[in-house]
């Protein structure tokens, strides 16, 4: 196995979802050669699954009147529980409206303001006829104005298809079904990546002036996630494995209250927004017991916490896929469900074979988004390694801090793609590629060696799917919605053991060509390291902030913890090393979020 293909380019973008493609388009427009690597055909990326929309303060719709980047900024910072970088947030909210319009120029069929009046929550809304034909917006949680631009039920889909059409138009090279296995670097500078073709199993060397990580989230580290199955945090482990690039705020993990059991497909918030109930195994509506004021419509993290608390108290419905609660929308009536909530009806029918008009929907809080990722500066440059950039969910640009607002993730992909893409272009134009072939071969041989050892089961016979399931369970059980010292310590110990065992993987099948078991075995050790960073970061952070909730430290502690976790994995180490950096506060000093009253703790219900 000494033969390999090699490719040279100006910019190598790993990941062809919205963030990666947007950055690639920016770089290519400025005359650079770009190669996009993607695990799957680009249009299958998880970006396409975002149905809600993207936030941008256009203020065209009646309910968005008076909106501005300032209001968007305030919502975002508050949502992050003051964990975000305020310079980044400011840049983001100012650019978002331009990015939305640019996507419209390229072809996104955004839903537009119409002259028809419509009814929301019993109120009649009259649109300004002056604004008819401009991009409209819908309501999302945690925002002061209706700000989420959308395309019917397929915002992510149309954004991705449009952006990919630009990739076609610019003739950007796309290598799909290719997985990056390691970054080529000398601890100072990044020179590209070693990758594996998932069709043939052959290894390749990509060298580039600039390398960009845009691989999306890591939801699949948790057994139950709303994420696509390709969201395994591979870009995060690429960066971590250099030993010099840190991951930021990995303990900040968002859970969505209503994932459909057992496929964990998202049931949108609209179900509860329109009046749906949550019921326990006795068909008792339990949310009013915990949250008499807001009931099912408390903020996402609060509802998720209450559901899990109720399940822990023994009121969950047992199932082969774990305990869950019921979502009940039957009382809304067939007409309402089959029109306003059609998506939900379709998902229930397709994936559970139930009809929400007559049946209860089994749901459970489900991992949804990772605020953490490859830590970068405001230009998208990764900490610790030159010529490396990261953006999108894979990065910790730090727009989201400890809790992301709905509609800000889709927005981040194209806004960061635009801003950071420009920085990449500027940086690359002045960069040169002078890489030693010995360095490339060294990294390549390391991966070849891994493949051989796995095929021959030289180090052991641990089965990749067994270990993987254990990792998923450790995170789900111990690093979920409720966290506490003992449980997290348990997770760290188990992950340490698991990481050790992951060095002894061996294949059961032959591992030839594009073998899926080999794919998984090559990926797993890196996934466990990322999981380790999540658990260790959560154990160390002795406060509750945003989605990170410690039962033993139920309050936010700005005196000691107004900072960002940086997790490194030094070369040869067997556990991550945590460092901290201060969070930059510019315009908005930490205060009360004004919602999430339950963050005071499950056993301190308000008088």
């Amino acid at each position, binding site marked *: 196995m000494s033969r390999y293909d090699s490719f040279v380019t100006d910019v190598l973008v790993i990941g062809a979802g919205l963030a990666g493609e947007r950055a690639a388009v920016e770089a290519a427009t400025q005359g650079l050669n770009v190669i996009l690597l993607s695990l799957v055909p680009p249009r299958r990326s998880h970006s396409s*699954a975002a149905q809600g929309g993207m936030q941008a303060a256009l203020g065209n719709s009646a309910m968005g009147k008076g909106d501005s980047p300032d209001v968007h900024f305030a919502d975002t910072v508050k949502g992050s529980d003051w964990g975000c970088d305020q310079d980044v947030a400011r840049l983001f909210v100012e650019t978002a409206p331009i990015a939305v319009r640019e996507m419209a*120029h390229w072809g996104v*069929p955004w839903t*537009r303001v119409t002259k028809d009046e419509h009814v929301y929550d019993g109120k009649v809304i009259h649109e300004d006829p002056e604004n008819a034909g401009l991009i409209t917006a819908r309501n999302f949680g945690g925002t002061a104005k209706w700000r989420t631009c959308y395309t019917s039920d397929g915002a992510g889909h149309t954004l991705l298809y449009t952006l990919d059409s630009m990739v076609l138009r610019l003739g950007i090279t796309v290598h799909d079904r290719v997985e990056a296995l390691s970054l080529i670097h000398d601890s100072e500078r990044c020179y590209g990546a070693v990758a594996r073709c998932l069709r043939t199993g052959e290894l390749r060397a990509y060298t580039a002036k600039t390398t960009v990580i845009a691989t999306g989230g890591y939801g699949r580290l948790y057994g139950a996630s709303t994420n696509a*199955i390709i969201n395994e945090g591979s870009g995060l482990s690429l960066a971590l494995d250099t030993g010099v690039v840190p991951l930021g705020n990995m303990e900040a993990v968002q859970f969505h209250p209503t994932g459909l059991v057992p496929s964990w497909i998202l049931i949108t918030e609209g179900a509860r927004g329109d009046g749906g109930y949550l019921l326990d195994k006795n068909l008792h509506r339990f949310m009013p017991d915990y949250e008499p004021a807001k009931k099912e419509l408390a903020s996402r993290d609060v509802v998720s916490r209450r559901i899990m608390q109720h399940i822990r108290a023994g009121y969950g419905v047992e199932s082969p896929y774990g305990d869950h609660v019921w979502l009940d929308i039957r009382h809304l009536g067939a007409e309402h469900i089959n029109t306003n909530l059609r998506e939900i009806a379709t998902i229930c029918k*397709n994936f559970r074979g139930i009809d929400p008009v007559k049946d209860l929907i089994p749901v459970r809080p489900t991992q949804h988004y990772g605020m953490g990722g490859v830590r970068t500066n405001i230009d998208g440059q990764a900490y610790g390694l030159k010529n490396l950039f990261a953006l999108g969910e894979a990065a910790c640009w730090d727009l989201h801090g400890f809790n992301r607002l709905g509609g800000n993730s889709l927005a981040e992909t194209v806004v960061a793609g635009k801003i950071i893409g420009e920085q990449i272009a500027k940086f690359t134009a002045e960069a040169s590629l002078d890489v030693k072939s010995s360095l490339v071969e060294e990294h390549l041989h390391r991966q070849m060696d891994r493949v051989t050892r796995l095929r021959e089961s030289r180090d052991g016979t641990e089965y990749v799917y067994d270990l993987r399931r254990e990792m998923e369970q450790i995170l789900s059980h111990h690093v979920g919605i409720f966290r506490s010292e003992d449980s997290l310590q348990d997770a760290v110990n188990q992950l340490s053991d698991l990481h050790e065992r992951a060095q002894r993987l061996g294949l059961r099948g032959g591992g030839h060509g594009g073998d899926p078991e080999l794919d998984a075995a090559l990926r797993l050790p890196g996934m466990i390291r990322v999981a380790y960073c999540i658990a260790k970061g959560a154990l160390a952070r002795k406060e509750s902030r945003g989605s990170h909730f410690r039962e033993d430290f139920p309050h936010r502690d700005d005196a000691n913890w107004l900072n960002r976790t940086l997790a490194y994995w030094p070369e040869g180490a067997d556990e991550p090393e945590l460092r901290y950096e201060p969070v930059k506060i510019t315009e908005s000093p930490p205060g009360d979020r004004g919602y999430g009253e339950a963050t005071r703790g499950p056993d301190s219900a308000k008088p």
Partner: protein
Amino acid sequence: MIERELTFRIMRYNPDEPEKKPHLQEFHLTEEPGMSLFVVLNKLREEQDPTLRFDFVCRASICGSCGMLVNGRPTLACKTLTKDLPDVTTLLPLPVFKLLGDLSVDTGVWFRDMSFRTESWVHTDETFDPDAPEKRMDNAVALEIYEAERCIECGCCIGGCATANIKPDFIGAAGVNRVARFMVDPRDKRTEREYFEVVGNEDGVFGCIGLMACDDNCPVGVPLRDQLAYVRRKMASAGWRYQKV
């Protein structure tokens, strides 16, 4: 609920071992409530045969990765529930596309080629002005574009099409629908004549012989017959008026 023992006859083929003819391999497993083919195939791979190849990404009928023939019918595996299947189910990869192994086919390459051939992007000379408000568009037009843009490129319409099965250059319903998407878009400045030169032929809309397996099998319900007829009428009128330059 009485537990059923399910049998799956799955096509096995590894391009690295061309000497082994494609064949059906039988697998057995016990049905669970709410089980989909996504769950089934992953279980089979993790518990019975780690070399089994298939593609899933979103597992929520959004990404279009898992098109295959389920008892002969082209559909998405992720939204196929075992409760709707008989005791014995045959799973085959989609025809037309290059076979990568077992149930995995290279739909991505096919669709990329089609997108290039139909020049699937908005053709305009206008440049973007970051300071100007967006151009207005009637919401009805936006919805019309979205109706065609909803295609998830799963390839079920192509795999089920007799013409696509024998004519490798035929762009199929997905290709014609793609053209329709840009035809209704006022931002795209292409003329009817330009579209005609791309799809007004046997590899395009006039290659369709009207069997409508595409329309019958589209897993996301894109109105393919309407789109095919729309483009056919447009192209007929363009063909009628076509003059050599």
